């Protein structure tokens, strides 16, 4: 399991490092929001989920899609705007989705995906399955009415879901203090009597807290909120120089690395050796580079496909 966590975190990191590179080279257009530094949460939470469980994600959602098991080749193709992509190249980074394994889609509207995940949880409850839904979002999103309305409804109907907030301290170019009058998003949950815990950016800690929340949801005991205190290494989007943040703060954030910390633990705990780590990283690199090459070779959609499937 620990090896699985590590592999997944590295996979997410590699995907985004590659994305940054191809984006900087102008190979992919639009906006690119990477989650480097935040790999632990998706790796840990998704380890509790299966293909029937749904997640809704955000503009910063690559990590979640990867952890939920998206096929990296076709995800990459989508980011390249190619027709082989999951969204036929129509939507790119901000809308990665794979209906087949419950990735309900990244959302370009802050907070937009939260009540949608509640809808998936509602459907699970309606159909009397034991599926659960996970809404992922940032602390900035908790300012939106959509967050409030979804939390309220989920609590009242005891929906089988988990609200997962990655509190990275920034929403675009402004710090948490602009967005929240409370320190922790767990305070928000008090308004709905939803159990909430806040954990650090350690994958095992997150895994345990998420397990508790997912089990609770699966057993029909209702929703929980999980806050992960993490750091956003890079700017809001790739290309954002973070002048508003100050070099020191950025360096401070980058000094905290959930992957490096975990590596150290794995070695200390004799779970993996240095060369095991190297092998995993090499394998993942190859996998991701293969995906990038695949995406490069895919084809752009044709203008004649513009209206295809708009209506059933």
């Amino acid at each position, binding site marked *: 399991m620990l090896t699985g966590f590590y592999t997944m975190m590295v996979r997410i990191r590699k995907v985004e490092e590659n994305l940054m590179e191809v984006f900087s080279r102008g190979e992919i257009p639009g906006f690119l929001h990477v989650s480097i530094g935040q790999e632990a949460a998706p790796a840990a939470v998704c380890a509790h989920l299966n293909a029937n469980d749904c997640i809704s994600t955000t503009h910063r959602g690559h990590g979640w899609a990867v952890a939920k098991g998206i096929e990296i080749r076709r995800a990459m193709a989508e980011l390249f705007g190619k027709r082989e992509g999951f969204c036929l190249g129509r939507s790119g980074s901000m809308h990665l989705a794979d209906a087949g394994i419950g990735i309900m889609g990244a959302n370009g509207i802050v907070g937009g995906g939260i009540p949608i995940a509640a809808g998936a949880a509602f459907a699970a409850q309606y159909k009397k399955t034991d599926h659960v839904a996970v809404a992922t979002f940032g602390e900035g999103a908790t300012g939106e009415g959509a967050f409030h*309305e979804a939390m309220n*409804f989920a609590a009242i109907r005891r929906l089988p879901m988990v609200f997962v907030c990655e509190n990275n301290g920034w929403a675009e170019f402004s710090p948490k203090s602009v967005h929240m009058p409370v320190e922790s998003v767990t305070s928000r949950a008090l308004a709905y009597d939803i159990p909430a815990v806040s954990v650090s950016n350690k994958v095992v800690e997150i895994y345990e807290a998420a397990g508790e929340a997912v089990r609770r949801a699966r057993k029909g005991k209702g929703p929980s909120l999980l806050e992960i205190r993490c750091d956003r290494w890079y700017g809001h989007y790739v290309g954002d120089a973070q002048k508003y943040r100050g070099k020191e703060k950025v360096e401070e954030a980058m000094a905290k690395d959930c992957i490096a910390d975990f590596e150290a633990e794995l070695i200390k705990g004799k779970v993996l050796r240095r060369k095991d780590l190297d092998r995993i990283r090499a394998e993942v690199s190859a996998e991701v580079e293969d995906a990038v090459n695949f995406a490069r070779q895919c084809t752009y959609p044709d203008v004649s496909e513009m209206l295809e499937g708009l209506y059933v």
Partner: protein
Amino acid sequence: MKETRYIFAIKEAMEEEMDRDENVFLIGEDVGLAGGSFGASKGLYEKFGPERVVDTPISELGFTSLAAGAASCGLRPIVEIMFMDFVTCAMDSIVNQIAKMRYMFGNQYTVPVVVRMPEGGGLNAGPQHSQCLEAWFAHVPGLKVVMAATPHDVKGLLKASIRDDNPVIFIENKTLHAMKGMAAEADEDVVLPLGKADVKLQGSDVTIVTASRMVHESLKAARILEQEGISAEVVDLMTIQPWDRKTVFDSVAKTHRLVVAHEAVKQFGFGAEIAAAAAEEILDELDAPVMRVGAPFAPASYSLEKYYVPSADDVVSAVKSTLERTL
């Protein structure tokens, strides 16, 4: 067929579809225990229980997006927005989520949500409870927009909307709720096609294109005009998006005159699109200016409501004006 009321016909449509398909459910404010603010779901809670007739907190955005999520997981939600005015709270859900989920995610999802809402005046409910906003939704790719004028139509169109795999904005009219008329029985299972207009009255001098409550005002106008020897054809669009160009254009090809009548504010209403399409595609058929009837450019008024909402008289004037101004 049997006599019923528009509001009962809505209930019957929902009930029959809920009987037919267990994935159909209703969600909204006070739709459950209370049977709906206008009584559209009376009895459904008792019959189907709180799982399928879902009372919500006051949170139009939240429960509409919730319906979107449920729909993409295989359910078929009917969302009730109590007054169309309140849909302003759910625009993000409808426009950025529901309308786009299928297309934006590469056709991976079908999102069969019906969002029902009553529009219009008639209750002296004032500026925030009387609006007609269908033109907004017709401008949004991915949505269908349906408006029903009679008990028969509302039943057949609502059943069609619930069965349609696309999201449908289903617009009722508050003054029509109490309207009596014939509608199909459950075993007849009448499902009217979306996107198809209905010629409610044949005529030869002018085509009146309309929908919802204004169908009745237009028919009234046609009767008045008949007295003066003017023969009006009344085309009920029934679906505003996509609207039935063929029926409208065929009618104009016959009458060579076009009036469009709706209850919404005239400017930038759906009449603009119909008139513009005529000026673009069948200008040569037009023998006279295209007149539009709609509410004045002001919020709905509490005490002046009867002057505010367009009536048969306004349709009569518009028809006369188009006839007088024949080129």
